[in-house]
């Protein structure tokens, strides 16, 4: 390849800069979008991996119904594949600070740093004295700061000093824990059933007889991503061996418990015998009370151990779901962009080669090989795509993940993310970009390179005119004005341009529909349906445990005097739910028992997810919400398992599946509750409807001042929280919409400029005939608008499919998205597409004005 060819290629860049720029831009947008979306997932994974590595996040967490002793610990430590173990104590307790009292999860801090689940200290220091504690940062936002004092109490008949040596603590530090990636702190048997905060104390403060949990890390996982297959491969055998240890230890502990009980019983008998002057204590064996005792010893159930992996941690699972969801959105869309890039490249290069046919003919005649001639165009296209890729990488790797990550940080407690360059993603995007341009260029050169030089010296015959099918449809064709006939003839004459433009416009509309539709499905409609149609109550009051009669009547009086027009007593409990057949992971849900099921529909609309029919609670089954049923893979008539805490379970029948979008719920009637739990539910919540006028703050103050009310929550605040959370997904959607818009502009610009350059002579001719500038532009833009119109329809349809596909991949966790796209999004997509056409036409009008008739008509093409 002579220097001449290379110089020639770079000269071409200068002389046809706008074309070069078009290729460069589409490739840049394509690469930025591809690398950006593709690297969000890995970047999220990497920052979690770094965090987990730094804090030594546990791989397994063991729970036991009777706690663990040192022998248990030793057995766990000695099982194969264990790297380290850490016994910890935890209790749930009421935390009082000023007027606030709610439930906290109290966790022991290991004596040495660098232990499993090390705290990530955000502010302050670690406790040095026995009356010092750390609380989690999130809890501190609502109350105690460093230097404040908190009091812990048991909230049950057992005093707290059976588990803790002290009850009053000074807060000396704020921390985050890798076990709690999200705001969710888990469930408890105390209070409202929801844990509000975390308290970390030195292990020495705990006076419990046994460890509550054993944390385990797996050997050989350092440097391995927790989200990888390898991680699963390493930890699965360990999970098995831990389960084996569990079953062995459970057996041993049961024998020990029996032996202890037997020994105790024997001692009691001996004491009883001595006290009553009975010579042989074995004579007491047949006495009824000792018989009863012996029977209960014989029937003593085995303790239960639970081996929980990382995915059982709700924060971890949530984060993993978010990554999957992001990857879902990133899966197909970027390829779309490269598809469009191919189109732009193909049209541009074809035009360029066509324009230079005489030059190519000359080079051929001079004896340049086909390869050398094609090389010039390949070099041109490759230069554009390499530059475009480099710029795209910069935006893709630096900007896009950062924007999205910052949005996600509202939801997750994670340290800073450092943007990373992912070689494989970069390589793949470059591969796409370069193959797109070179294949397109190669195809463009093909016919010309096959022709003989002599043929190329002659101008290429313009495509001959042809009648179009529409001309046979008399009743349409006859009605058209002359100029409309010309427009139609021209549209169908340039078949390639017709299809390219229609396809390009269709792709852009499809992406706009998908992007705007995602916003509808994920943000707008979910909020509307959930907070408008389904959750109809305006306020919920959380009640304290075990209300006295006076407190109850005071509450009734207050409710009657405030402008709560009507209200409903309800019992809400945090539970987890599992399918009854397989050993699926438990899913956190809310158990709802309305005191008056007939009135429920005014507060919480239960209607069938598919038919929309209202659902009624019966006395022998439960109603699940849609997404919970989907995740459990159950339908009406199946049974599910309800776990009230990590160790007690109930089997229930699914009688209906209700439409719902946020949070999982299981609804039961009070009588069914009584059937399965043997007692009537204690209402701990009041759902109310407001008839406005009074301000929410005043109402909240009145209600909070009422004895027995522990919290007041307005549905409008819930909706606001939800909107804030969705801010994050909105960022992602905006990235898509902006990229789609940019691409739409470039595509339309390219196709229109090429259209004009191909029809230079025709335009000059009509100018000579005396068409005014606006008539000349109408002649051309009429075609653009029509082509846009033709492209929009398939675009809208394509958009619906694209949207459905992405939504399916993005919907994870306890959120359910609304499948439909709002009419306004379709309208907006259409308007935007037309606006891009209009904008490009506006630029083109300038170009048209500048066309020099004399030059254009001088020679024979």
């Amino acid at each position, binding site marked *: 390849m002579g220097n001449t060819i290379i110089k020639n290629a770079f000269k071409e860049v200068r002389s046809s800069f706008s074309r070069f720029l078009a290729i460069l831009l589409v490739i840049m947008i394509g690469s930025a979008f591809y690398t950006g979306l593709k690297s969000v997932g890995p970047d999220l994974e990497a920052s979690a991996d770094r965090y987990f590595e730094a804090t030594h996040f546990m791989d397994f967490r063991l729970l036991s119904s009777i706690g663990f002793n040192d022998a248990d610990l030793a057995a766990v430590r000695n099982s194969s594949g264990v790297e380290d173990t850490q016994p910890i104590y935890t209790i749930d307790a009421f935390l009082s600070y000023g007027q606030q009292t709610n439930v906290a999860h109290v966790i022991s801090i290991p004596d040495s740093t660098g232990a499993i689940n090390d705290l990530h200290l955000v502010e302050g220091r670690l406790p040095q004295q026995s009356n010092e504690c750390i609380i989690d940062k999130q809890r501190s936002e609502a109350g105690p700061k460093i230097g404040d004092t908190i009091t812990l109490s048991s909230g049950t008949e057992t005093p707290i000093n059976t588990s803790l040596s002290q009850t009053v603590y000074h807060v000396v530090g704020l921390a985050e824990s890798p076990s709690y990636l999200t705001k969710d702190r888990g469930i408890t048997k105390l209070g409202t059933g929801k844990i509000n905060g975390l308290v970390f104390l030195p292990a020495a403060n705990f006076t419990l007889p046994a460890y509550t949990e054993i944390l385990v890390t797996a050997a050989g996982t350092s440097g391995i991503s927790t989200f990888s297959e390898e991680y699963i491969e390493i930890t699965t055998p360990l999970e098995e061996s831990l389960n084996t240890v569990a079953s062995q230890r459970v057996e041993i502990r049961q024998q020990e418990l029996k032996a202890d009980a037997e020994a105790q019983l024997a001692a009691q008998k001996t004491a009883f015998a001595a006290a009553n002057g009975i010579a042989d204590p074995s004579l007491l064996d047949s006495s009824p009370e000792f018989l009863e005792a012996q029977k209960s010893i014989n029937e003593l159930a085995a303790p239960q151990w639970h081996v929980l992996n990382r995915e059982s941690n709700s924060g971890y699972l949530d984060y993993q779901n978010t990554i999957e969801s992001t990857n879902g959105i990133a899966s197909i869309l970027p390829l779309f962009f490269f598809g469009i890039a191919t189109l732009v490249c193909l049209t541009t290069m074809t035009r360029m080669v066509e324009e230079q046919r005489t030059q190519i003919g000359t080079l051929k005649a001079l004896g340049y090989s086909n390869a050398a001639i094609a090389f010039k165009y390949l070099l041109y296209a490759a230069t554009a795509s390499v530059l475009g890729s480099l710029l795209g990488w910069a935006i893709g790797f630096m900007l896009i993940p950062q924007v999205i990550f910052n949005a996600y940080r509202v939801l997750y407690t994670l340290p800073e993310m450092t943007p990373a360059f992912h070689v494989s993603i970069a390589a793949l995007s470059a591969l796409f970009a370069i193959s797109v341009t070179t294949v397109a260029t190669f195809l463009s050169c093909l016919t010309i390179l096959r022709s003989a030089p002599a043929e190329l010296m002659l101008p290429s*015959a*313009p*495509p*001959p*005119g*042809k009648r179009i099918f529409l001309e046979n449809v008399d009743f349409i064709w006859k009605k058209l004005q*002359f*100029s409309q*006939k*010309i427009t139609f*003839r*021209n549209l169908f*004459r340039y078949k390639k341009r017709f299809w390219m433009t229609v396809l390009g416009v269709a792709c852009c509309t499809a992406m706009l529909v998908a992007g705007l539709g995602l916003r509808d499905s994920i943000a707008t409609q979910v909020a509307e349906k959930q907070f408008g149609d389904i959750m109809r109550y305006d306020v919920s009051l959380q009640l304290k445990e075990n209300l006295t009669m006076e407190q109850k009547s005071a509450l009734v009086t207050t409710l009657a005097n405030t402008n709560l027009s009507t209200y409903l007593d309800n019992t809400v409990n945090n539970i987890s739910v599992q399918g009854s057949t397989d050993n699926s992971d438990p899913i956190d849900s809310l158990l709802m028992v309305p005191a008056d099921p007939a009135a429920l529909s005014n507060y919480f609309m239960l209607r069938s997810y598919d038919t929309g029919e209202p659902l009624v609670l019966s006395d022998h089954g439960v109603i699940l919400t849609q997404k919970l049923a989907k995740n459990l893979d159950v339908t009406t008539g199946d049974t599910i398992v309800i776990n009230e805490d990590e160790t007690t379970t109930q089997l229930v029948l699914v009688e209906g599946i209700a439409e719902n979008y946020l949070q999982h719920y299981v609804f039961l009637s009070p009588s069914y509750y009584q059937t399965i739990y043997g007692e009537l539910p204690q209402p701990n919540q009041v759902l109310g409807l407001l008839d406005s006028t009074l301000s929410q703050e005043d109402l909240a103050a009145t209600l909070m001042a009422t004895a027995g009310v522990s919290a007041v929550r307005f549905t409008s605040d819930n909706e606001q929280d939800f909107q804030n959370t969705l801010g994050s997904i909105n960022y992602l959607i905006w990235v898509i919409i902006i990229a789609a818009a940019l691409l739409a502009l470039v595509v339309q610009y390219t196709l229109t400029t090429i259209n004009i350059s191909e029809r230079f*002579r*025709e335009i*000059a*001719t*009509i*100018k*000579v*005939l*005396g*068409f*005014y*500038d606006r*008539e000349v532009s109408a002649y051309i833009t009429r075609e653009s608008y029509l082509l846009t119109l033709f492209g929009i329809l398939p675009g809208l349809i394509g958009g619906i499919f694209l949207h459905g596909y992405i939504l399916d991949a993005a919907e994870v966790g306890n959120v359910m998205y609304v499948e439909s796209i709002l009419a306004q999004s379709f309208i907006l997509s259409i308007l935007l597409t037309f606006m891009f056409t209009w904008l490009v036409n506006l630029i083109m009008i300038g170009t048209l004005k500048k066309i020099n*008739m*004399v030059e254009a*008509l*001088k*020679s*024979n093409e």
Partner: protein
Amino acid sequence: MMNETMIEFKGITKEYTMGEVKIAALAGVDFTVNRGEFAIIAGPSGAGKSTILNILGGMDSPTGGEFTVNKQPLHCYGKKDLITYRRQEVGFVFQFYNLIQNLTALENVELAVEICKNPFKPLEVLKQVGLENRMINFPSQLSGGEQQRVSIARALAKNPTLLLCDEPTGALDYNTGRSVLKLLQDTCHRTGMTVVLITHNLAIAPMGDRIIKIKNGCVESMSVNATPLPVEDIAW
């Protein structure tokens, strides 16, 4: 009527600036053409003939000088006025026909008359140029001579005051060229339309009512020919 001045060029200059260099395509051109004349502008290639015609047709503006067509001072006209002038008063015939490929012969003519005030009926004009049988054909289905006839019909149908032809026979064979010249001459004499025709071929000059010879951007000579020859009597 023959003595009424139709075109008057006074000291028309045209310069092209190419980087540093200035090329004078026209270095002061003076001539007149009377209404209804068949004027022939002849000269060697590069003399500046096309430049004159382009200025005359309102497609290009002179650098200096004054000129009037049909008493209109065109050198004073703005861009839009020049378009109106082209639209209403000028018909062009080019060497390479410049027909719109995607329109049939008839439609090409229709496109031109769409925007005119008093056009002739396209069908009739096509009949006059002898193409009544080829009206529904596309340019690619017509021979060069036929295409040039369509292009002439397109120009005539506008009912222009001025018909400008730039080497109309340049791309045609001898006989076809002659028949096209005949059509133009006959039209001129029959309708009284003023025709200005450019050629590098001096042999056809005797068929004009007025002969203007151009050389190096200047008028070398201008003569009125009282006895123009019919095309049939000219050979080259």
